[in-house]
């Protein structure tokens, strides 16, 4: 079912053009302020390791909250009711998981000038096999992630403009803008635009909530509807839904914290103090974002009862439509909301693309193909391979697979398999390289097989089964056949605090 938005058409196009122009201007500004950006990997991919609290905070924000949070979460809350309240604590879990590794990782990043997550794995294990496998898993996960963002951009643009701008044109327009500003200013552009995009998104979700409360009925009305028609949406979870709740907390907590682009941002902080202050702010954002969009979905239960699953996917569009018809303020607020949603998707996509390119530049090309190339050449190769990947993904995006939710779980399942190497490696000097490699590979295969077969024993997600096997192999393998004394010494030199 396609929803014709009341505000679709020229005002939608106007806002999109404005967003596009603003992002390009930011790119040019970042480029003019720092012309050396194309000559140094540190400058291009990490903003010269100089991001301040505000910008760092918003760039973390952009990696965690995307357009999907706004468009995809309310329909899920609509279908599951309060069982989906888990979306608030799972975002807090991400920060909790960060605290288990970020302090040491930041210190090591400074000391060894680490650029990417793969860089860290290479420093720790000094094994070509492990480095390349980790790089491939990350590139695959990031590619899937990027694909999801492209599909969402296209749907968002054609929705906002009422089909005036076709899906394909929307995707191409924003990808060109995104690549242009990323190329101009690298991480700085990406982080500055993340800031603008984050503010637009926050403004949008709050007006959506306020409008819904005024015009579509509040939570008590929604509760009455649920009592009458679907009390299970109101009741405390039990059995299978409790397992789902637990899995989401663990999977999202670990998965989103070790997203390569989230992981890499730790290296971009100007100082430890900056990083700490950004994390503290992030710990409260779930209430203002996930909490708000959750409420919007719950309000929808009373406002738009009895939608089928496919219809409910359009819930936010329907609500925005209803609000835009009220008065001029909400009309423009809803235009801005959808502009903000698209901006948020673009801001997630640009971070992912930058990290994708950095792994190509630094870890594949720079490490194995042409170690002697100068940094500007490495950056160029990263940019070009990034664009080639974008073209391939856009072609795939023309035929989007499944629903958004399934793709969301898919990328986690692969990326999470790098967690033992990334995190355990920080603390355990006896961790054996062969065990890490075998675990990572076995975990990935198990997760992939379970996913494709739709197999979910005990209701636990396939990514977690993969991670469990991965951990057992890593730990068991390391205990059975310990790292050689030389390897251990080497590991201790890296992760020990002595200088």
């Amino acid at each position, binding site marked *: 079912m396609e929803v014709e938005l009341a505000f679709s058409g020229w005002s939608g196009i106007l806002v999109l053009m404005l967003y596009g122009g603003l992002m390009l201007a930011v790119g040019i500004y970042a480029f003019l302020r720092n012309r050396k950006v194309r000559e140094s990997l540190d400058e291009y991919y990490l903003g010269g390791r100089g991001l301040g609290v505000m910008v760092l905070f918003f760039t973390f924000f952009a990696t965690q909250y995307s357009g999907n949070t706004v468009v995809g979460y309310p329909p899920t809350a609509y279908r599951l009711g309060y069982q989906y309240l888990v979306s*608030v604590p799972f975002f*807090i*879990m991400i920060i*909790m998981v960060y605290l288990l590794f970020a302090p040491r990782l930041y210190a090591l990043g400074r000391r060894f000038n680490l650029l990417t997550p793969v860089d860290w794995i290479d420093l720790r294990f000094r094994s070509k096999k492990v480095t390349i496998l980790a790089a491939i898993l990350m590139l695959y996960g990031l590619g899937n992630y990027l694909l999801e963002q492209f599909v969402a951009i296209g749907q968002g643009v054609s929705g906002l403009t009422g089909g005036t701008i076709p899906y394909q044109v929307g995707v191409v327009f924003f990808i060109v803008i995104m690549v242009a500003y990323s190329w101009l200013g690298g991480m700085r552009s990406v982080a500055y635009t993340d800031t603008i995009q984050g503010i637009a998104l926050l403004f949008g979700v709050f007006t959506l909530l306020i409008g819904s409360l005024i015009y579509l009925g509040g939570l008590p009305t929604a*509760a009455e509807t649920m009592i009458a028609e679907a009390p299970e949406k109101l009741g405390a979870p039990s059995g299978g839904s409790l397992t789902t709740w637990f899995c989401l*907390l663990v999977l999202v907590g670990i998965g989103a914290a070790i997203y390569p682009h989230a992981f890499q941002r730790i290296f971009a902080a100007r100082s430890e103090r900056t990083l*700490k202050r950004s994390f*503290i702010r992030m710990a409260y954002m779930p209430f203002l974002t996930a909490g708000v969009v959750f409420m919007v979905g719950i309000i929808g239960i009373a406002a738009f009862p009895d939608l089928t699953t496919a219809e409910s996917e359009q819930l936010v569009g329907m609500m925005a439509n209803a609000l835009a018809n009220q008065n001029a303020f909400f009309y423009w607020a809803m235009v801005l909301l959808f502009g903000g949603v698209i901006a948020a998707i673009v801001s997630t996509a640009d971070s992912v693309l930058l990290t994708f390119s950095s792994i190509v530049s630094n870890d594949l090309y720079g490490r194995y193909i042409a170690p002697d190339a100068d940094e500007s050449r490495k950056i160029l190769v990263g940019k070009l391979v990034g664009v080639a990947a974008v073209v391939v993904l856009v072609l795939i995006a023309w035929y989007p697979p499944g629903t958004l939710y399934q793709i969301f779980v898919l990328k986690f399942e692969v990326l999470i398999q790098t967690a033992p190497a990334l995190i355990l490696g920080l603390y355990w000097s006896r961790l054996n390289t062969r065990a890490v490699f075998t675990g990572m590979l076995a975990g990935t295969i198990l997760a992939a097989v379970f996913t494709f077969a739709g197999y979910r024993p005990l209701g636990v997600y396939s990514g977690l089964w993969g991670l469990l096997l991965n951990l057992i192999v890593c730990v068991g393998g390391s205990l059975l056949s310990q790292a050689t004394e030389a390897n251990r010494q080497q590991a201790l030199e890296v992760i020990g605090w002595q200088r």
Partner: protein
Amino acid sequence: MKRRISEPVKKPLVWIGFVILFALINPWYFPAGSWSPLFFGVPYWALIILLASLALSIFITWVVKTQWETGADEDEEP
């Protein structure tokens, strides 16, 4: 030279706090399917989960402020 280093991951108190709060943000301790009483249309258990989540955020703030000190930036000083 030895520096005074404090990492959250090495503090038992941090782990105890995280484990307790993790247990509290999972809604296993409510009677299955119960929702009454409602507060402004929100079931009691959802409010408790939100409070537990807020407690986790506050605990995270405390951990970051007091349990994390690696002096990583001092390395850069000559």
